[in-house]
């Protein structure tokens, strides 16, 4: 079993928590996510042009870059995290250009070296898998694909081909942020995905309250929360960690109580 598959193995949904690397005190915030009960970490790689993100994560990207975050810093953050938390899976999430800049093999090697468990790349669809996917899969790094409300039944097999780790269901057609999907539509979508794959299904976009998290946890294998945490970091800056921990705790408690 991998770290990743292990964290989906329990009888409750996993809490997947996102923050942007280099925005605020990242090491402290990562520890706070784990203390608060996050099962899987998604660490955002900042990019100058985060075109699939809403205002909260856009600003986090720009704050991080303004603070001078380099690709090397992100891998250093991941590596240190791996030392402190040997069993918590960490996924890098971001855009294609910073990932492919030094070549797919370089990136896969850097992930292996830092103990990164998987990758989510927003703008490499299945059709362009060649630029990154094979290198990752050969290195045993999960290549997490996204499915969305526009991914119809005809297309789904293409998305699943070469998808590893888990499947991330983006529950709204839109950018990251505040919009949220109706619970019924999430349930239908997860059921449809489950009929086509054995991969765990994590659901994200627009989830911010413990109630929402609990509702999604009833159907999905993972619940992804991002913008709401990033907003807390924006509000509290360098001292955000305790606030992040308390908020994540409220989500994880709700999820623990909402058995599948």
């Amino acid at each position, binding site marked *: 079993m991998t770290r990743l598959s292990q964290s989906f193995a329990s009888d409750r949904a996993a809490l997947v928590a996102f923050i942007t690397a280099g925005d605020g005190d990242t090491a402290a915030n990562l520890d706070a996510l784990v203390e608060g009960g996050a099962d899987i970490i998604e660490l955002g790689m900042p990019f100058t*042009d985060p075109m*699939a993100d*809403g205002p909260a994560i856009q600003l986090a990207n720009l704050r991080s870059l303004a603070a001078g975050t380099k690709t090397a810093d992100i891998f250093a953050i991941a590596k240190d995290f791996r030392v402190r938390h040997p069993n918590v899976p960490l996924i890098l999430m971001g855009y294609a250009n910073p990932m492919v*800049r030094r070549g797919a093999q370089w990136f896969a090697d850097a992930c292996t070296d830092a103990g990164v468990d998987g990758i989510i790349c927003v703008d490499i669809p299945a059709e362009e898998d060649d630029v990154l996917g094979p290198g990752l899969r050969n290195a045993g790094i999960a290549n997490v694909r*996204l499915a969305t409300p526009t991914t119809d039944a005809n*297309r789904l097999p293409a998305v699943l081909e070469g998808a590893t780790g888990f499947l991330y269901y983006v529950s709204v*057609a839109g*950018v990251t942020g505040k919009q949220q999907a109706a619970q019924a539509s999430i349930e239908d979508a997860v059921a449809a995905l489950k009929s086509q794959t054995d991969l765990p299904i994590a659901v994200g976009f627009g989830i911010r309250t413990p109630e929402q998290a609990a509702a999604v946890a009833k159907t999905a294998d993972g619940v992804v929360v991002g913008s709401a945490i990033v907003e807390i970091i924006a509000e509290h800056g360098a001292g955000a960690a305790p606030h992040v921990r308390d908020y994540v705790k409220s989500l994880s408690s709700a999820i623990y109580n909402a058995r599948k």
Partner: protein
Amino acid sequence: MTETQNPPNSYRSQPDDRGHFGDFGGRYVAETLMPLVLDLEKHYTAAKADPAFSAEFDDLLEHYVGRPSPLYYAERLTEDVRTNAPEGKGAQIWFKRDELNHTGAHKINNCIGQILLAKRMGKTRIIAETGAGQHGVATATVCARFGLPCVIYMGARDMERQQPNVFRMKLLGAEVVGVESGARTLKDAMNEALRDWVANVHDTFYIIGTAAGPHPYPELVRDFQSVIGREARTQMMDRTGRLPDLLVAAIGGGSNAIGLFHPFLDDADVAMLGIEAAGEGLKKKHAASLAGGEPGILHGNKTYLLQDEDGQIDEAHSISAGLDYPGIGPEHSWLSDIGRVEYDSCTDEDALAAFQQLCRTEGIIPALEPSHAISAVVKRAAEMDQDKVILANLCGRGDKDIFTVADALGVKM
């Protein structure tokens, strides 16, 4: 990344069925957009094969846009060049006058094609990004003509330097949304348009303004703009009985350039020169992605980009808002790598000089974008024999730029 194989049988058969021009192009978009992009490709393929589609396109180009645009021999500019050129030098300079199109630039050719596609696909809302505002004006124009609501994303800095076009778009009924992120120019406007599109896929058609973005945009924009080169080829043969020796065009994303070049790509004796914006100079702030960039992925395609060693995109700079973009259409990246087209650049300062030279010698006020090409034309003409023929794309008129030019020349209006 230089291609080592033999040259292809035809330079006009790209892209492949995945939208790749050699190593470049492709469909690097979020999954939400992927089904839409595939659907667009399907509809475009059907439209291309449908005589009714091209008939409507041609009819609108003739009666609404005012095509064919004239092919003009710039006699006084040619004389001006010859005055300062070495003995026997000074090629003839001809212009394809797309600045005489309705709305004042080549952008409308593409907008007519795309709005017909939008209609075919049953889309009811149009969005677009704009830099100089020419594509925004052209999009707002076709939306008014077809009665569709229209939202234009424009960098806040570009709104300041292109105020007449902002007002034009509003007069035409468009909503103009100022984009405050990044350097507040074209790249940021494109990001924001993509965000809108992702959130409104069900009813919205994105009219991209240059030959870039995810497949099939680079191909379809090229095809719609190729009317420029097709007309020019016929006109040149009719008027002079020969093909030009050199084609020159300015490059932002590269739509006017590819529109002129593409119909000539297999004419081995026709040389081609694309001119990027060198801004304050290639060692300072500029917008020359081929000269100063490296291959990368942005806005749906793989292409040359201005970027740092971590793949973060650099801000571009050009006095011309329409060239102020850190990327270039993927077909140009390919044509550059295989060596079929030569690319060079022109600074803000040289473009301003060429702008004034054309005003005074020909009574034509060009846009700042083609002023970059004109600067290169004047330099090349002086090195070429007098019986040689240069054809440049005069792709836009300069009314929109008079405030920027006045400012650069230190004139208070």
